[in-house]
């Protein structure tokens, strides 16, 4: 009998918040998993945003092969959910109610597979979402083997911390406290499963920004409300529109001055931490995520070599003994390496979404030694190179001093992107693509 698979994805969970000594969150349940399972403290997500990275995970393909402009989950013909299903797995899910998840919803067998992702009714683990997960676990006992995919948004803005965990004891930031809370509720879910018969994967889709001293750009900007209200009361109505504009402009100037003053004392890493959420970024705080494989006789081990989230499904496939796929994926199984020394592969990185118009659209390469990235549309612009071993927070751009390494990284990058999609498609896909292209020509579109 094949093991069940419980795949937990905590949106926006940073590696340094669950592993290592620097964290301030309290995570006894995750600690137990790392103690008893194999965990990777240098797992890299291939994109800084959810959809692109989910596409990488489910298809084990680099984002440029699943469509960089994708706004929806795309399950290619060689995706792993289909493979699991084709080999007897019942597929279940608990995912945010977002159109982007439609493709996965087509696969799941449970009815209540989606939960509210948007305020004011956003559902959090601490607000009862754990019970939905447990309810599904209870209902699928007779459907073994199962693959159950859970995606939690507790860390996704708006971050709302459970009052029980909102104290210093549970972390030095709202983010760390939310992590402590998540750990508690994950514990409740995990205790419902038989880990001997279940392979458990815990990971994330991307990292997050945790503002230095808990001061984000919004906390630094002066509050306009009082001034505006007073202004509204004492000034004639005809001046309100101009007055409001003046207020906003003044606020922006004050924010800029205050920020510049505050930033003087900060490192580039700390300055970045105060940028608005969802700022496109390939720094480690946005792409380094935790990865744990536990249960089902997985041995206890810590692996510090660089791996990628697109390696997750090839690893699952090997553990649950699915037939090997031909070489159509970019990931590889980490299973054989659980006990051995791993050979590292450079990780392809891309910001999400791949915006034709965004100047911040960035592409890069990461090894455990270096991080390289530059503008996606111009290989000569915004060139960044960091020595990750000497400068893990990526404070010092050494691109100018090390043009040889930049050149080498650029070569790796162009080699990766030169493999076009067709090479990785089945002949059936290729035929469909050709047929559609022909049709476009006939319609005059191309």
């Amino acid at each position, binding site marked *: 009998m094949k093991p069940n698979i419980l795949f937990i994805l905590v949106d926006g969970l940073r590696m340094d918040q669950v592993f290592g000594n620097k964290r301030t969150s309290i995570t006894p349940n995750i600690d137990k998993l790392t103690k008893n399972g194999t965990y990777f403290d240098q797992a890299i997500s291939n994109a800084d945003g959810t959809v692109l990275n989910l596409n990488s995970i489910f298809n084990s393909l680099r984002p440029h092969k699943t469509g960089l402009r*994708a706004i929806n989950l795309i399950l290619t013909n060689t995706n792993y959910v289909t493979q699991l299903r084709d080999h007897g797995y019942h597929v279940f899910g608990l995912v945010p109610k977002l159109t982007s998840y439609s493709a996965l919803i087509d696969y799941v067998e449970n009815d209540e597979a989606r939960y509210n992702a948007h305020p004011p009714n956003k559902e959090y683990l601490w607000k009862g979402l754990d019970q939905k997960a447990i309810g599904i676990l209870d209902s699928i006992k007779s459907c073994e083997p199962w693959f159950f995919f859970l995606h939690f948004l507790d860390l996704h803005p708006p971050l709302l911390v459970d009052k029980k965990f909102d104290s210093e004891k549970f972390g030095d930031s709202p983010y760390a406290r939310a992590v402590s809370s998540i750990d508690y509720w994950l514990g409740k879910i995990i205790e419902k499963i038989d880990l001997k018969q279940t392979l458990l994967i815990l990971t994330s889709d991307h990292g997050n920004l945790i503002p230095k001293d808990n001061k984000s750009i919004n906390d630094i900007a002066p509050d306009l409300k009082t001034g505006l209200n007073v202004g509204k009361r004492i000034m004639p109505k005809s001046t309100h529109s101009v007055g409001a504009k003046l207020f906003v402009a003044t606020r922006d100037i004050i924010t800029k001055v205050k920020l510049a003053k505050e930033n003087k004392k900060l490192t580039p890493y700390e300055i970045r931490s105060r940028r608005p959420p969802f700022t496109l970024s390939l720094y480690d705080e946005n792409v380094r995520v935790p990865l744990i494989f536990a249960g089902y006789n997985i041995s206890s081990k810590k692996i510090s070599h660089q791996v990628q989230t697109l390696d997750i499904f090839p690893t699952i496939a090997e553990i649950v003994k699915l037939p090997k796929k031909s070489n159509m994926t970019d990931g590889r199984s980490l299973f054989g390496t659980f006990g051995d020394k791993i050979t590292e592969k450079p990780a392809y990185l891309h910001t999400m979404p791949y915006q034709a118009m965004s100047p911040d659209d960035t592409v890069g390469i990461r090894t455990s030694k270096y991080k390289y990235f530059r503008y996606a549309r111009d290989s000569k612009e915004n060139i960044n190179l960091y020595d990750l071993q000497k400068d893990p927070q990526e404070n010092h751009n050494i691109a100018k001093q090390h043009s040889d390494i930049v050149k080498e990284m650029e070569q790796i990058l162009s080699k990766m992107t030169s493999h076009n999609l067709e090479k990785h498609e089945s002949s059936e896909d290729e035929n469909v693509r050709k047929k559609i292209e022909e049709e476009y020509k006939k319609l005059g579109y191309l």
Partner: protein
Amino acid sequence: MKKYNVILLLIDGARIDRLFQFPIFKKLKQDGCFFSQMITNAPYTLVAMNSLFTGMYGSKNGINAYNKMFQHPKTDCKTLAEYLTKHGWYTRGDAMRLSLVSDRGFTKMTSQEDDPDPDFIKIHKKILEETISEANKQPFFLYLHYPKIHHSIKKNVFDKYDDFSNEYFENKKNNLTHYDTYLKEAADYLEEMYLKILDDKLDTNSIILIMADHGMGIGEKIGERAYGIFTYDYSLRTFAYFIQPKIFSKGKEISGLTRTIDIMPTILDLLEIPIDKSCLTMQGESLLNSINQSTTDEDSEFNKIAFSETGGLLGPWPSPDSPNVECVRTEKWKLVHNLTPETWELYNLKDDPQETKNLVNKYPIIVKKLKDKLQLIIDECADF
């Protein structure tokens, strides 16, 4: 059940604002009910037609992007032809191209796509005769797609210019003159077909539906030569004529907001065919109520919303796998979300029908209201 035939004459890419220079469009208006603010859910044939025939938006039926060509809507959708076939109608179609509309439910579906210069008047008259004969006294549903405006646009616009060609965008007047000649040809076709329908006395026992799948740009917005890339009214706002003297008062115009996804529920309602509740629920609503309502209540501005979506094959931010431009529209307002550059546009369509003044920063409350409506529809499309 009412056993009317349903004859759908679809004029691909007909612009509503250019119709009335041709007498046939006036004549049709005199003979039936004219919906003059009908919004298509997608400004291109593939998604527009599959939505028309499923009564739901592309993001719900699964056909929501150019690269979904050759596919059928989700199996849970019941198409109009499936409904009609099941209830005893003979169903026949002649599509623009077989890649662009699902033939699910049709007894017979053809296309003239391999004919280099098809004479649609001759061909469609023949198909009409064949249909009457093959239906063998059963009621029939006949869908005839007239694609020649597109053919002319292909030859004179797509093959010559790209979405940014100065020469094209600087000559709007000229482009419009050319467009009118293509529409003239369509009007001639329509006149012949309509006369044939009257000659054959089909108006007595048929619901005649004449409409367009989408409009057509003539260079209004740089980045879009004709259609499919943006969601401005020149390609989204279309029309429909319903003609059946026993049901529709002659010469009536419904100027309120309606949607092409409302057509299928209207037909089922007219024919008194019960909705199959085991299938995906249609998002359109029967228009019979709006035919009977004379005025639009001011307060109802945000009650009826038309949603449209697209993802250009070309243009400034191509997205052939999934839509990346979404919009919601009321009679007065339109909110556009361009997902790729992540920008928003708000237009007051009454004051600014050309959609030139983006008011997104001026009316935050309207924007918020419309964003909520948009999110509701997006969530609804994801509901199964």
